[in-house]
């Protein structure tokens, strides 16, 4: 059967990673390609590079990072952050990324999802969505944008279903409530979205221990779990997480 995936997310600013100060194994700190390679050798299933470069003129640096990753890493990887036009998407895909992740720009312009899916197929289009618990919403969750700072009028489940119908082939679901807490993923919203859409759901936000991944992959019904700081700071290796999951009966690639 299909394996559950472990995805590592790297935040990249002007071509350098912003986390990973305790990263070991002689990795050049701050170089996303070196860090990606280290995770590749640990057996990560997929990588996400999130471009948090603020200035538009420094954005092209990311294309160079993508091209270097594509030459070295032989697993799928996704690029997100700051992609708001068909041309942005085209550049990233042609540089060698398998997938693009669309977040705030997709909320502002849902047609971007359809455009991207027509260009490269649904399997290359990931909807990134940030959600907050909100009892005023029908599903109990509201979509927020700009890193969680700006609420939208969108209901989380309705937006997920709409994005799927527009052509999104995967959803990275990030709970702003859980993000940064290291107290575990938000299982309720993950299960809600994952059991209602027909595309894979990658759970994000809140991972602190391997047990948190087990919970979201089993109880939360996620297809994949995204981790960042718990591996960047050397607390766990990807392999340790996977060995733990395999022991607990989660089918992972070892």
């Amino acid at each position: 059967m299909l394996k559950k995936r472990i995805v590592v997310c790297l935040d990249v600013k002007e071509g350098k990673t912003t986390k990973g100060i305790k990263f070991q194994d002689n990795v050049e700190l701050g170089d996303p390609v070196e860090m990606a390679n280290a995770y590749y050798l640990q057996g990560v299933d997929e990588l996400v590079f999130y471009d948090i470069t603020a200035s538009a003129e420094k954005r092209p640096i990311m294309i160079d990072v993508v091209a270097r990753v594509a030459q070295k890493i032989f697993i799928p990887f996704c690029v997100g952050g700051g992609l708001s036009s068909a041309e942005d998407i085209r550049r990233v895909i042609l540089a060698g990324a398998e997938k693009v992740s669309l977040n705030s720009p997709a909320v502002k312009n849902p047609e971007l999802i359809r455009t991207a899916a027509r260009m490269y197929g649904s399997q290359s289009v990931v909807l990134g969505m940030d959600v907050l618990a909100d009892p005023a919403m029908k599903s109990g969750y509201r979509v927020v944008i700009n890193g969680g700072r700006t609420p939208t009028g969108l209901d989380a489940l309705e937006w997920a279903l709409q994005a799927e119908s527009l052509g999104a082939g995967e959803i990275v679901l990030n709970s702003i409530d859980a993000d940064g807490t290291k107290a575990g993923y938000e299982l309720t919203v993950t299960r809600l979205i994952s059991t209602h859409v027909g595309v894979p759901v990658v759970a994000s936000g809140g991972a602190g221990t391997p047990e948190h991944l087990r919970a979201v992959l089993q109880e939360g019904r996620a297809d994949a779990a995204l981790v960042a700081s718990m591996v960047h700071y050397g607390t766990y290796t990807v392999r340790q997480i996977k060995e733990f999951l395999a022991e607990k009966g989660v089918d992972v690639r070892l």
Partner: protein
Amino acid sequence: MRTGIIDYDAGNLQSVVSALRRLGRDAFVSSDPQELSKADRLVFPGDGHAATSMESLRRLGLDELLKDFFQRGRPILGICVGSQIVLDSSDETPEGRPGVTPCLGLVAGTCHRLPKGEVEARPLKVPHMGWNTVRIEQPGHPLFRGIRDESAFYFVHSFYTEPVKSSIVLGTTEYGLRFVTGFVQDSLAAWQFHPEKSGEVGLTLLDNFFDWRP
């Protein structure tokens, strides 16, 4: 020995190019049938739609090149959509219209949509995307050298291949149903998954193609 990578606007070739470079296999990318006809081997990738892919192949004259190459017994490796459209036809039609898309017909067989179903009370998601295992159906075949049975490879697809002859099947995979994910007929080998995106195991499998003497 030079390998031609067929470029027919069917998605990104970067990962195939990078993988061959990493393996030290001399390769060039081209959409020109004349240039490609000088290659010793062909890699035939594909990420797109069966109908669009067939259109592009015909427009560029690459359908005839592939047929000719195959008739001469020179090795061809089909990957993903490249493994599907070497068959007679595919159920993948423009805008999902009824009927089939006629394909290259190098190998007898058809291509069908993966059924959406229920497993353990949850719906099976399509496309089949992620890492899944391949059961080796022809142990000892040189294309599997150094590959353990039930190794995991990276898949992204909504259609699966069904060759007529079961004797040509190299590997199968379980996702709702057990379907063919690798086959070999004469000088043509085909993988449904992406060996170029399947880590070191994938690279080993890919490398085997270049040592293969069909």
